[in-house]
């Protein structure tokens, strides 16, 4: 007889979130998680938060650089151009 995988509790389910979203969970863990999510609104909300956080991370764009930093690098560029 094939043993059924043990059901997940929320505390363990959240630890699978990142791999689940990246599609890198084993098939067995994916099934266990999906089974849990089907019955758990809170973990579904957690996963949605995680998904939204990753999406937002991809839209934050580069930090603003100070004008001093940009000026320093542009001067480097000018120096390089005049030397070469």
């Amino acid at each position, binding site marked *: 007889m094939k043993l059924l995988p043990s059901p997940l509790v929320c505390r363990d389910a959240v630890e699978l979130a990142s791999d689940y979203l990246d599609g890198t969970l084993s098939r067995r863990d994916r099934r266990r998680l999906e089974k849990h999510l089907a019955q758990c609104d809170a973990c579904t909300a957690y996963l949605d938060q*995680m998904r939204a956080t990753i999406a937002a991370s991809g839209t934050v764009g580069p930090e603003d650089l100070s004008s001093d930093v940009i000026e320093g690098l542009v001067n480097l560029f000018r120096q390089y151009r005049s030397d070469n």
Partner: protein
Amino acid sequence: MDDAELLESLLGGDESAFTELVRRYHPTLLKVARYYVASASSAEDVAQDTWIAVLKGIERFEGRSSFKTWLLRICANRARTSGVKEHRSIPVDPNESGPTVSAHRFDQGGFWSDPPVPFTDAIDTRLDNAALLGAVRDAIDNLGEPQQAVVTLRDVEGLTTQEVVTLLGLSDANVRVILHRGRARVREIVEEAMKGSKI
């Protein structure tokens, strides 16, 4: 303009194309460098050297990888060399095996006692909300190493896990664990910020 167009202009000596590439990538170069070297000022030096290497090498860049990948690889190689000279040890996650969600949010059976409140709708409909994006950015900036470098490369810059593995010299499994912990921390900080300010 996309990177390829900027690169084309840079080849023609266009200063504004250079400035735009600097705006786009200098902050990430600093983060990659900071992962390997001992101080912020060393990271500045590495990032600056990277731009010089770009100017020197741009004519030989054949476009087999994206400009971003090429640039970050130059930076990582230089930073790695500097880090070795400084005897800097590669940062390890100090809490690598602990839970990513506070134990007090679960009951004794492991089920939520303080469940998360969905904020997907708020993010989806107000993606350009400066306060929310500010919270995400602050959260990423406040991550310790190695989480900051991994989350920045994977989620902010959109690199693949394999590219992050190559750039940071970590194993695939390590990148996944660090990414998981970093993302969980960012989510937690954003959740707190949203609770506090009702973004």
